[in-house]
C-alpha cells in the first residue's frame, strides 16, 4: 500500500477511509435518503458511504455544504474556494486543500496564488485582496480564533461587501467542519 501524502498538492489524491464504508446493499431507508441515492445514481464515493453511518447529520450536511459553496450572489466561487483552502492549510487537510486549490485554479486560470500559499502558508505573496481573505480565513480557523475586528475592516477596505464577508466566514467555518472529517477519518493517497 502506498504511503499517505504529507505535502500540499493541487493534484487531487485518492481518499482512503480509516472506517469501513457502508455496504450499499445493507443501507437503511434513512441512509439511502441521506445519500440521495436514486436508481440513476448508484456510484457513491467512499466518503459519503462512511458519513452515511450517521444518516441524521449527513442528511442536513449535504445541502448546507452545497449552499455555502455554490450559492448564487455574494462572494465569487473562486474566493469561496480560497476560504476553504485557508482552513485546510491550517488544519493540514491535504485532501481538502488539493480539491479546493484545484477548483480555485480552474476558476481563475492562475496557479500562482495556490503555489504561493502552499509554499509559504500565511506568508504567501499574493495580491492585497486575496491576502486579506487568506489572513482572515486563516485566523478564524485557529483554535481559538485569532481573527479580529481589524481583519474584517481590512476585508471591507479591500472592497468586500458585508454579504461577501459573511460568505467568507461561512466557507472558512465550513472547512473547520469538513477538515475534521476528511483528515481524521481517512488518508490522502496518490492516485494510481
Amino acid at each position: 500500500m502506498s504511503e499517505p501524502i504529507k505535502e500540499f498538492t493541487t493534484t487531487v489524491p485518492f481518499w482512503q477511509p480509516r472506517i469501513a464504508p457502508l455496504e450499499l446493499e445493507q443501507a437503511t431507508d434513512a441512509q439511502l435518503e441521506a445519500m440521495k441515492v436514486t436508481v440513476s445514481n448508484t456510484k457513491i464515493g467512499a466518503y459519503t458511504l462512511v458519513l452515511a453511518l450517521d444518516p441524521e447529520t449527513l442528511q442536513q450536511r449535504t445541502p448546507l455544504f452545497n449552499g455555502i459553496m455554490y450559492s448564487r450572489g455574494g462572494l465569487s466561487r473562486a474566493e469561496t474556494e480560497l476560504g476553504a483552502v485557508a482552513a485546510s492549510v491550517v488544519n493540514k487537510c491535504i485532501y481538502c486543500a488539493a480539491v479546493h486549490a484545484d477548483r480555485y485554479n480552474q476558476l481563475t486560470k492562475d496557479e500562482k496564488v495556490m503555489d504561493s500559499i502552499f509554499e509559504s502558508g500565511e506568508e504567501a505573496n499574493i495580491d492585497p485582496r486575496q491576502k486579506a481573505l487568506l489572513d482572515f480565513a486563516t485566523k478564524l480557523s485557529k483554535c481559538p480564533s485569532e481573527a479580529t475586528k481589524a481583519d474584517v475592516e481590512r476585508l471591507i477596505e479591500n472592497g468586500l461587501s458585508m454579504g461577501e464577508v459573511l460568505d467568507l466566514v461561512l466557507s472558512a467555518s465550513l472547512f473547520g467542519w469538513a477538515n475534521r472529517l476528511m483528515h481524521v477519518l481517512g488518508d490522502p493517497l496518490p492516485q494510481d
Partner: protein
Amino acid sequence: MSIFETIVTKASNISADSPLAGALSLRSEILELTENSHEASLRPNQPGGLSLAERAGLACRMAKRNDESVLARHYETLFSVGSQAVADTNFDGGDDSRMKAIIRHTDLVTLNPKDATEDDVTALRSAGLDDADIVRLSELIAFVAYQIRLVAGLRLMAEVA
C-alpha cells in the same frame, strides 16, 4: 423559524434590526440548515452509542477550548445527568476508559486536527466505540468547530457593521 431566533444569530447578538439583517437574510437557508445540523449533532433522534448528555457535555467542553463562553452556556442548557463532568476541561475521563478515549480524541481534534492519525481512530475502537459511533463523534466535533467559528465571525462583522 426566523433566522434571528437561531442559536448562531442569538449567540452573536444579531437581531432583525441589525445592519447585518439584510446580508443574513440572503443566506437564510444556510442559517436554517445550520440549526438543523445542530439538532442532528446535539439532539439526534437516534443517538446510537453517544448519549445526548455526553454530546452536550462534549460540545460545552469544545466551546471552552475555543474560549467561546456564550456558546458554552448554550450547550449547558442541553445538559442532563453526566454532562457536567465531561464539560470540565480538568476532567480526563478518570477510570472510565471509554470516556477517557472520547475526551482525549475530542480535545485533540478540537485543538489540533492536523495531528490526528490513524492511531487515534484505532484508540477509539479499542475503547469500545464501533464505526458508526466514531462517525457520530466525528460529526459532533466537526459541527461544533463550524458553529463556534461562524459565531466568532458574525460577532466581528457586527462590530464593524
